[in-house]
C-alpha cells in the first residue's frame, strides 16, 4: 500500500504529473481578484477567506479526472481490480497520494495568498487550518466522480460538474469557520468540527462509491 502511495507521488512530481498546476491555478485566481475588486483594503480582507476557499476548491477539482483514467489507459487499473487488497483501500490510498501532491501544496501556498488579500494573521491561520481540514473531502468526493467518468475520454468537465454540488457543504462550513475565527460573536469550533466530520464522512463514502463505480465500469 505504501508502494502505491509513493508511486503516485513520484508520478505527480515527474514531468507531466501536474502536481504544481493546481497551485499555479490557485495563485492565478487569487492574484487577479485584487485587480478586479480594486484597492479597497478593507473589502479585500473581508472577502479574503471566501476567495481563498473558492480558489482552492476550483484548483483541487483540476486534476481529478486523471485519478483513475491514467491508470485505465495503460492497463494498470485491470491489475488493481484483480488484487486481494480490497479496492476500497487502493482507492483511499490513491486519494491520499493525490491530496498530498495537489491539495497539500494549496494549503501551504494559502498564507502567501492571504497576504495578497490583506488578511490579518489570525484570519490567515484560520483559513489555512480550515483548508487543511476541508480539502481532503474535495479529493474524496472527487474520487467518486472520477470513477464514474473513468471510461469517458474527455470527462474532465463532467467530473467537475458531478462533484461541485457535493462540495458545497465543504465550502460553506470551511468559509464560515474561517470567518468565525475573525468575527467575534460567532464561535469557531462548531463549523470547524462539522467540516472535519464532513471529511471523515466522505473518507468512508467516497472510496466506497468509487470502488463500486470502478467495478461496474470495467469492460
Amino acid at each position, binding site marked *: 500500500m505504501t*508502494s*502505491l502511495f509513493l508511486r503516485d507521488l513520484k508520478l505527480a512530481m515527474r*514531468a507531466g504529473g501536474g502536481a504544481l498546476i493546481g497551485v499555479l491555478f490557485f495563485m492565478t485566481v487569487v492574484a487577479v481578484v485584487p485587480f478586479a475588486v480594486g484597492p479597497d483594503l478593507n473589502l479585500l480582507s473581508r472577502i479574503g477567506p471566501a476567495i481563498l476557499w473558492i480558489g482552492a476548491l476550483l484548483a483541487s477539482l483540476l486534476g481529478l479526472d486523471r485519478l483513475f483514467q491514467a491508470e485505465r489507459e*495503460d*492497463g494498470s487499473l*485491470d*491489475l*488493481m481490480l484483480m488484487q*486481494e*487488497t480490497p479496492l476500497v483501500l487502493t482507492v483511499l490510498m490513491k486519494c491520499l497520494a493525490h491530496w498530498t501532491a495537489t491539495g497539500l501544496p494549496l494549503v501551504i501556498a494559502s498564507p502567501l495568498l492571504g497576504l495578497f488579500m490583506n488578511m490579518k494573521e489570525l484570519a490567515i491561520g484560520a483559513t489555512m487550518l480550515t483548508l487543511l481540514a476541508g480539502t481532503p473531502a474535495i479529493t474524496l468526493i472527487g474520487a467518486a466522480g472520477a470513477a464514474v467518468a473513468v471510461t469517458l475520454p474527455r470527462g474532465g468537465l463532467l467530473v467537475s460538474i458531478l462533484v461541485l454540488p457535493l462540495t458545497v457543504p465543504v465550502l460553506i462550513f470551511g468559509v464560515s469557520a474561517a470567518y468565525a475565527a475573525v468575527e467575534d460573536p460567532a464561535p469557531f469550533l462548531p463549523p470547524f468540527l462539522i467540516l472535519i466530520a464532513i471529511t471523515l464522512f466522505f473518507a468512508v463514502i467516497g472510496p466506497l462509491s468509487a470502488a463500486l463505480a470502478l467495478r461496474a465500469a470495467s469492460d
Partner: protein
Amino acid sequence: MPISLLVEGLSAKRGEDLIFHDISFVLTAGEALVVTGPNGSGKSTLLRVLAGLLAAQSGRVLLDGISSEIGHPREFCHYLGHRNAMKRELTVEENLSFWKSFMGDSPGGAGIGIEEAAEALGLGGISHLPFGYLSAGQQRRMAMAKLLVAYRPIWLLDEPTAALDASADRLFATLVTRHLGAGGIVVAATHQPLGVEARELRMTGFAGVAGEVGH
C-alpha cells in the same frame, strides 16, 4: 496439492450479443491452453471473464486445490493484456518494484528479484531507464517481467508475443515451459504458436459453440 482451474458453462455478452457460450474446460497444474480463433471471436473477452474483469452471463470459474480461503480466483491470476500496465514516466525498476510489492506473492511460490527478472527476459542492465524510452518490443518484454517478480500460479496471457522478435519469442516459450514445469497453469490467446505443448480451444465467434480440439 496441485491446483486446477475449472471453468463450467461459461458464456459472456458484449452489449446485447452473446460472444461465446457454454465453454467448459478443466486445466490441471502444468497444463497450458491456447485459445485461437479469428479476430472478434471472443478470445480477449474469455480471458477478461477468467480474470474477473468482466461479469460472465452464466457459468462459473473455480479454483481447486487451494488450501487458503480466497475471495475470487482472479487473486491467483496474472493478467497480461494488450496494455502493458507500466508507467512511461517511471523507470523500469520503479515500475517493477511497485508491482512486486503491490501484488505480493500468492501462497505456494515466490517472485524473483527485479534485475533477475529483467535478465530472464534478456534485458539486463537497462532497468534504470524510464519505461517510455524503451522500444515497443522491449516494453512488452518488461511487462512480461511482471509475471516473474510476483508469483501467481495462473497466467492469463492476451496476445503475449505481439511485437516480439523471434528470439524473444523463444525466450518467452522457455519461461512459459518453466512456469508449467513448476506446476503453473497458462491460458493464452494467440495467433502465433506459443512454442509449448498445449491444448487448443478454438473460438468460432458470434455465439457459435466453441469446440476443444485436444492436443
